């Protein structure tokens, strides 16, 4: 078994880690070599967003997969998948800030590199988050991932204690829901993709709801069945 642990740690994990970087590497390559559409900036923004949702979904699949198959090793990848969701979420936000807000400032009265630019950029981002519901909800989804990323280390889990840590990390459910709504509200008419993600998230979150019910029923059953011993 020690061998198995080592293989996971030194072989499988690095491979999965590199695979997770794949989409980012591919997008960079495609953008630089003209393999994207005539509007590559919009492609990069869209794709990083979609990959964020995918990694949120993958992260939420880990626990059910482990429970249903008894394949305990998958749990060793949950943190990495969660951090990748955060990574792509941050990339998505960065592309939005640079390609949409910064490039959309149109005028740079104090020169491009100046405090005026920083101020108007912050104002532009703030105004957008405040005014446009789909940005508001997308930003919420991202912000909720920040405490999860910060508390993802072993030291943090120890400091918080397993139970509190678990409670905190349920925030990812809210991120999943907000992320799907963000996508849904963005789309003009063809909602098939947001619908697919909504269905996936519904299954993954529904599984947890069902489990909570089953658990409480089981506990109740055990309590009533237990003979009272002196």
């Amino acid at each position, binding site marked *: 078994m020690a061998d198995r642990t080592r293989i996971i740690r030194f072989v499988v994990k690095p491979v999965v880690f590199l695979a997770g970087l794949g989409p980012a590497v591919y997008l960079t390559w495609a953008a630089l070599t003209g393999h994207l559409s005539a509007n590559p900036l919009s*492609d990069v923004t869209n794709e990083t967003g979609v990959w964020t949702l995918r990694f949120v979904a993958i992260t939420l699949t880990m626990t059910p997969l482990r429970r249903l198959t008894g394949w305990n090793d998958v749990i060793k990848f949950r943190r990495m998948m969660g951090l990748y969701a955060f990574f792509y979420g941050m990339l998505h936000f960065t592309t939005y800030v640079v390609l949409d807000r910064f490039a959309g400032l149109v005028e740079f009265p104090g020169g491009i590199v100046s405090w005026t630019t920083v101020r108007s950029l912050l104002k532009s981002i703030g105004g957008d988050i405040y005014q446009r519901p789909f940005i508001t909800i997308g930003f919420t989804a991202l912000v909720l991932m920040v405490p999860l990323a910060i508390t993802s280390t072993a030291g943090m889990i120890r400091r918080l204690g397993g139970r509190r840590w678990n409670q905190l990390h349920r925030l990812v459910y809210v991120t999943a829901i907000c992320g799907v709504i963000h996508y849904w509200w963005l789309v003009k*008419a063809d909602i*098939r993709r947001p619908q697919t993600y909504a269905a996936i998230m519904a299954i993954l979150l529904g599984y947890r709801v069902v489990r909570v019910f089953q658990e409480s029923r089981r506990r109740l059953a055990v309590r009533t069945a237990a003979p009272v011993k002196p």
Partner: protein
Amino acid sequence: MLIKRPADIRSSEITDKKLYLNRRQFIQTAGAIAGAATGVGVLTKGAAVLHAVQPAAHGRKLDNVKKGSPFSNTNGEVMNTWEQITTYNNFYEFGTDKDQPAELSRNFKTDGWSVSVEGECAKPGKYSIDDILKGETIEERIYRMRCVEAWSMVIPWAGIPLGNLIKRCGPTPKANYVRMSTLLDPKRMPGQRLDVLEWPYVEALRMDEAMHPLAILAVGIYGEALPNQDGAPIRLVVPWKYGFKGVKSIVKIEFTEKQPVNSWQKTAPREYGFYANVNPEVNHPRWSQASERRIGEFFMRKTLMFNGYGEQVASLYNNIDLKKNF
């Protein structure tokens, strides 16, 4: 707490432990792989696989296209390339992704096309493309095109003034609006197999808008016949309005008394109006219209009122509130 029960299975019936473990492991592994495969399949299903789509083929030159129209003034802005104009299209009849029309319209045949003229006019009937172009001079018109999605292009159209055709149809005094619709044929237009919009696509103009010399029926770009993905064989171009007003692959022109409801207005009346004039002061509820990205550029530019054609068209709207009539 442990509840002990007597064994009710004879030991001979119990599967050998080794076999049992193997089988369990097999089921688990198979289950996990199947689960993972389904997961990956569902997640990537319908996702845009990014690849450079082929631009339209060259080769169908239009004869006698007259250049140098006074309406072609784009203030020295650079034209977008043939490749950009033929690979980045909103043409939902051939799919809702920008690169789908280029691909899915490749085998679209427009031979024997005719446009049916109907409604409040003296000369209704079927007009072939040749009928429509007969006696007309095809002009090059270099126009800015502003999409409602906040991107824009500069496109050298080739076409005739819509007003010329309208005059020939002899509209009656009751003809207040011109309603135009796209071909309805899900066999040839695969995007119509999904009800993302109500088919056929419908657009309309007020009569004075339609008669304005800037409004054209385009039959080409860059001096060549209109590629399928850009609305072959004939489409509307109204440069002071958002791109979606430019109904493509037109098969019907109808003169009406009442104001028609255009497709996008029907789908989302809060977001898209009848007029759809380019207006940086009226925001789309979900995005700003104050600026736009010219395809091929990094920094965005300010969106101009009426897409920069205010001098020519602003007088059409003296009597209406453009904030209400967006």
